[in-house]
């Protein structure tokens, strides 16, 4: 009799226990499960959106690429591994070896094979992802030369074919980019908008840029490591032709036109080109809204009065002097205590109008104010540099001895180191834009580059007349003298490219593909001391070394190192020469 409750208890104990096991079968409530992703057009499109959000734009890379070139220096002496020449196999700068991103693209193609979404959507998205994958490989070839060519989804748990771990030749990667962009262009729509989405024009523009790269490597580089870096010289002409043809197809598509809304003010027209959103010249861009997605160009680069920090990339004197004069000549202004000018731009008044849209000078009016980059006040009757007052806390006869945007303001974190600030892409709304909240769009491809590419490719092919016509497109818009087949030189082609594309992250790569970095960069870059002479109310200028050392660019640095870390991880990789 007494055992009954005991047995009952045991039975109930077991029943209750068994009914509780469902606690283990939980489902994630905060993620999306794989099985619904690939047949839903909106989720597939979302997957591609994610690829765009991780796209290697390298937009507004202040403090980096510009300062590695002759374009600019920075407030803290431009001390970095690249300018010091200390990049080595254990220390890389500016890496991009992103096979995670490549895998994401490959997964997309693999899933599309069985996806049930409609063909036209599939074609459009596949075209975009081919463009994306090509761009990603282009970022790698620029740095490393040949890299492993992975165009399929590799199984991390299986054995991996050695062909996916060994570096392909630089030429093979160039050809892959050629094929990818051609395929992308065939799948993509003509319609150029919205410009944050890859279009046929964007694919062809990438092709033009990549083919020009390959051609230059073939012509100016040398084949090493059995072709892992370098392209045989005899291939150069073929790539130049492809570059020119691709550029031509964009030019002739009728979808784009050079920005020319202010034809009477060449300088202002050029400045607005970078601020008027979605203008006719833009082929592909990264868009910013300044709240959800923003950048730091304004907060880092504007004159101190309008920026949070300022002076992160300061145009060098060499860069400014590198502009042609309007008449095509290259004679330079004179500086010294006996040369008094009424403002900072005056010495350069003969220069290319684009210069004044690219660089801030002392006395430039800007957003209800005036740029004040003078670094000292000379109170002596006759300019005497040893008498100059340079104290930010001092005024002389109610005139501050140091301008509000001056390099003498070093007690604040950042000021210009050269006496100049970048003007290109700087927001002209006049407010101090907080860090990371700039909203100007970054132009990846614009039509002007296509003309320049065509001009360079045709010039290298010996077609000087075609080259001159293409080059004159940007020259005439800029308001400088035109060239013809007799006056065009390689120097002019390259100078025009430098002037037109300044601070657009092209120069670093141009110096590398032309193999002229050693001669251009191994130098101590200069700025101008801008001194206000109180008695005359004018300024005088003294060039000075803006950097504390001469930069070092070694022959090895035409390629990035593969690095020991990557080779340790994947012993099939071979280190680049001279590292």
């Amino acid at each position: 009799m007494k055992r009954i409750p005991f047995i009952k208890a045991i039975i109930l104990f077991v029943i209750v226990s068994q009914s509780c096991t469902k606690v283990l079968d939980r489902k994630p409530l905060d993620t999306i499960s794989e099985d619904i992703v690939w047949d839903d057009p909106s989720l597939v499109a979302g997957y591609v959106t994610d690829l765009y959000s991780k796209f290697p734009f390298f937009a507004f890379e202040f403090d980096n690429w510009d300062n590695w070139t002759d374009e600019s220096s920075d407030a803290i002496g431009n001390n970095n591994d690249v300018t010091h020449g200390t990049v080595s196999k254990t220390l890389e700068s500016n890496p991009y070896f992103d096979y995670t991103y490549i895998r994401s693209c490959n997964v997309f193609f693999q899933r599309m094979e069985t996806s049930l979404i409609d063909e036209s959507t599939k074609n459009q998205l596949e075209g975009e992802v081919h463009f994306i994958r090509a761009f990603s490989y282009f970022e790698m070839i620029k740095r490393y030369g040949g890299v492993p060519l992975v165009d399929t989804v590799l199984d991390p748990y299986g054995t991996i074919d050695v062909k996916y771990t060994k570096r392909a030749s630089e030429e093979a990667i160039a050809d892959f980019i050629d094929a990818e962009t051609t395929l992308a262009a065939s799948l993509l729509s003509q319609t150029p908008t919205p410009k944050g989405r890859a279009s046929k024009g964007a694919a062809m523009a990438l092709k033009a840029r990549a083919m020009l790269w390959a051609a230059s490597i073939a012509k100016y580089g040398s084949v090493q490591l059995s072709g892992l870096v370098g392209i045989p010289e005899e291939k150069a002409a073929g790539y130049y032709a492809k570059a020119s043809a691709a550029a031509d197809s964009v030019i002739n598509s009728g979808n784009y036109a050079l920005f020319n809304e202010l034809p009477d003010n060449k300088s202002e027209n050029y400045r607005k080109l970078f601020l008027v959103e979605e203008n006719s010249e833009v082929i592909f861009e990264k868009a910013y809204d300044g709240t959800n997605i923003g950048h730091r160009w304004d907060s880092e680069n504007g004159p101190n009065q309008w920026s949070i920090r300022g002076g992160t990339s300061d145009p060098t004197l060499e860069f400014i002097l590198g502009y042609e004069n309007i008449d095509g000549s290259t004679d330079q202004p004179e500086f010294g205590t006996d040369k008094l000018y009424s403002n900072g731009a005056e010495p350069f008044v003969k220069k290319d109008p684009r210069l004044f849209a690219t660089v801030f000078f002392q006395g430039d009016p800007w957003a209800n104010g005036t740029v004040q980059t003078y670094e000292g006040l000379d109170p002596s009757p006759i300019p005497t540099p040893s008498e100059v007052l340079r104290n930010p806390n001092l005024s002389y006869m109610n005139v501050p001895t140091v301008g509000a945007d001056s390099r003498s303001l070093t007690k604040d974190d950042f000021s210009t180191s050269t006496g100049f600030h970048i003007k290109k892409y700087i927001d002209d709304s006049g407010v101090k834009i907080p860090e990371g909240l700039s909203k100007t769009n970054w132009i990846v491809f614009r039509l002007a580059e296509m003309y320049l590419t065509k001009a360079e490719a045709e010039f290298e092919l010996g077609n000087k007349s075609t080259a001159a016509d293409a080059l004159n497109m940007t020259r005439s818009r800029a308001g400088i003298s035109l060239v013809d087949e007799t006056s065009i030189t390689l120097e002019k082609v390259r100078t025009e490219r430098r002037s037109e594309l300044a601070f657009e992250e092209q120069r670093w790569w141009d110096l590398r593909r032309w193999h002229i970095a050693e001669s251009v960069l191994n130098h101590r870059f200069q700025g101008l001391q801008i001194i206000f002479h109180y008695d005359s109310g004018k300024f005088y200028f003294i060039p000075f070394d803006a950097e504390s050392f001469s930069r070092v660019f070694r022959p090895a640095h035409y390629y990035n190192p593969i690095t020991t870390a990557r080779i340790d991880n994947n012993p099939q990789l071979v280190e680049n020469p001279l590292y």
Partner: protein
Amino acid sequence: MRTKIYLMALLLSLSCFEISMAAYSQRVTFQKKNASLEEVFSEIQRQTGLSFLYTQEMLKGTKLVNVNYRNTPVVKALDDCMAGQSLSYVIDKTTIVIRRVSFVQSPRVVTPPVRIIGKVTDSTGQSMHGVSVTIKGTNTGVTTDENGAFSIEVKDKNDILVFSYVGFTTLEVPLNGRSSISVSLSEKPSSLNETVVIGYGAKRRANLTGSVSTIDAKVLSAPSTPSIGQAMMGRASGIFVKNVNGQPGENKVSYNIRGFGTPLLIIDGLPAATNDFNQLDPNDIESFSILKDAAASAVYGAVAGNGVILVTTKRGSSGQARISYSGNYGLQYFAVLPGFVSSEQYARMENLARFNEGLDPIWTDEQLQKFKDGSDPLRYPNTNWLDVTLRKYAPQMQHNISIQGGSEKVKYFVSGGYFLQEGLERNSETKSRRYNLRSNIDIKATQRLNIGINLSLLAQDYFGSAVQLERTSSDFGIMGSIYRARPYFLETYPDPTKTPSSANSPNILSQTSIVGYKRKDQVTGDVKLNFSYDLPFGIQAKANYHLYRTYGQYKEKREKTPTYDYDANTDQYTLHNYTKDPNSLRQRDWVGNNFDQQYFLTWKKTFNNHTINALTVYEVLSYDSNYVEASRIRYNYDIDYLFAGPNLDKDNNGSAYQGGREGWITRLDYDYNGKYLVEFNSRLDASPKFPSNTRWGFFPSLSVAWNITKEGFMEKLLPTLNNLKLRASVGKLGYDNVGNFQYLQTYSIQSPYIYDGGTNVIERGIQANALANPTITWEKMTTSNIGVDFSLWGNLLEGSIDYFYRRRSDVLGTRIVSLPNTVGANLPSVNYAKYDNRGLELSLNHNNKIGNVYYSFGGNISWNREKSLLVDQTLFSNEEAARTGNRIGQWTDLAWGKKTAGLFTSKEEIENWADQDGRNNATILPGDLKFVDYNGDGRITAEDNVIIGRGTFPKLTYGINLTVAWKGFNFAMLWQGAGMYDVFLLNSPDVTLPFYAGNTPITSMLTESYIPDNPWLPSNTGANAKRPLFRTDNYNREHPSFGWDYSDFWLISGAYVRLKQMELGYTLPQKLTRKVGIDRLKIYVAGFNLLTFSAVDYMDPEVDTNPALDFGLYYPPVGTYNAGIQLQF
């Protein structure tokens, strides 16, 4: 008549229990004066039908009684009428058998009883109320009265009296013919009899076989600390508790058992969230156990790998209601803060920094003079931002009142607590409040059924400025702003309503007051219901149910605030910008639920000298939570609700989570006469974090112990040894600390992108989370432990020593490195790595009483260290890569960097040294660091990295405590220390690099740096230069080779020792307090974090070393001074 009662235990679901309760539930009503027992018995018989069995002989000489029964239980009626009658009774089903007491207990000799009187006091001479006094070998006993007095009748003047009281040593006193004795009980000189709470049960310490540390709960509630975590510091071996943050409402502490990581926290038998654990009222805690080895924690299975901390809350005990009150008031202060240089020193240092770089001075002599003499405070101020922003002391207050008592049937403990802590920001109203209510009730429902009801309610409120002292994801934080504020910035402008701009001061004052607020409220209700039922054969069934719900709300208002620039020359203000623009209101609400069930069966059997205990438990835990948050911006109206904001740019989000756990626990425990002890524990555990085929795991453990002193030979061999026990254990544990659902491929929404730069419409993409790992399972750990517990010289010295070895395998981590990078997969965690860890723990305690002085002195010390046996690493392509990259077979706490050989002092030395800057040292100056060229290649590169020190987690931790009591006074002191680890100062550049990111240098940068000949500061080129030459910030940060590189120069020992707690108390004589009806009244003063000894005087040694939170960017730990009172009625 036979009565059957069916008890429906509704929640128990265990069906009905048929119980024969007959006599116990019957009641009688009967009044009569001078009634004979016979009359009483027959009346009871008439009313209840119970029959009486007695002889007339038995009733001879019994006294007449006055009875007044009104619906009185039979048992109570019988007790009353037979009180003092030398009769007893036994109930046998429906018959009440009356017996003569003397006949039963002493049938042969009838001696007249002797009355013994006496008094019981504690070690301080206070009389003790409620001490149980029993005659050894009988059930006869009394308790002492309010004056500690007792009176008891014994049969034999040579009987032995046993005095016992909770928390005190039980004392046996032979009467030896005395008829009056006075006895003094001492507080727990031996812990052997202490009951230790272990996983799913409790045991006497003497019978423990696993490694368990305990903390006496009484010490926790004495000096007031904001949380129990802070009170636990230094109290027990094998656990290291660090106070990493003093933010009111958080008081973040990190718990670490044996260097393993965050342990499992258990309150009253069920897992608790860290917040609930930290917010427990210390006054509510009864006991505290730390389960360290596998034997002790294996019953917690897959979550117990890092050890377990168990707390139980207080419960009622039978007896008169005892009301206790404790309250204290304290002042908090920052235990360690740096000092900053003055305006003049700042300017001189800045000139010098520029001088060192070959630049012109920026401050003129005239300006330096003005800073020095303070003659122009508007233009040349000298502001101490620490004083301006922070107050010296912030109040803290704690009250707790509890009532405890009960009868045999119902026992209760009810407690209410209030805790207030204010912040140290001067202008803010930062305030954290906590309200605790706890009600623990035990009901003996029937002879066999016990019900326990634990209710706990916790409410927390926090209010503070929108910008906290600590750095957050959205704000730099006030503490960091203090570093950024320069002494020559104005504290306020002449017009105090104009908030200074960040260019002139970092807005500190506005951030502490007017930029908005944060408010957090959280309410947690927690119900635990326990049912236990005694089944036949010594079996007990138990069911526990736990319902938990927490609801919280967070609200953050950010006020758009104008800031101004001020020109002292013209006395003009110009609008600089708006901070916290646009204004915004964000609100987040969350709910968490738990429902847990546990079903126990326990069995205990004793025969001869063998005792067997068996336990099996089935447990199901289930929890879910969700949150919703919303915000609006650009408010036009000052109304702090969401509805009042504009519709544009409103934002919201929400998500949910659910989880659970299931386990079968068994324990078998064998004890031979307390001499040989064997315990087997196991758990079959399932975690839903893993797929169904790898979900279940079996975690067994075995432990044995041998009480050597119970062997007959020991007493002769070593008579001074009171106790010696050897313990050994081995067991397997799991650890499932990994994200959920890693066995499924999932995608999450993230990554905004704009396709159309004209319209700026944001689209969000979906990204694949890490690849699925379909075979993922938990980490396994095998821990062996051997230990010795001993006590010597009549328990004067007690201690224990433990050694453990733990091997972890299948440790989860991503195998990024060894998979070729071109695969590009975002890899899931896999069970791969292996580590082992070993450690030694020692604790010693000495208690004694000399005259009126009782004292206790003790300490604990722990050491442990871990080695990597297998980790994810590459096949190194060369020897050098292997030298610096290999981690297999190495200690895990090694720091790598360059060795230094002091500072350069001359140009020649620099020229002859290895190339440090890649330019043959052309840029190196005297006062720069001298790096050692390890590989001798003449250049300083990454290949010169060597092991330069230890990791940042202490390998050695210790605590020392001293307690002295004399008469009513008591004094206690607790020190905590840690050692054998390093702090890497460069992780906190604010205290290493002068002018770092525009910071104001701390004073030691002025006094300790290498200073060459210059016009501004006295030279310091000698041996006392502990810091290198400084330059401007820009230069410093970009020149790693000048000294700001990972080197042993910046690696300093993290060792510290700290006076954690000190208390001086006085308990007033009872003679005085009784007059106002107070049983016990104690007043005390106490302090927390009172003294600190460490290698640096500007950095709290306990702060979080997480590099993401540099020193200076959070709320430093606080110290407190308290005064308090404890009352008992």
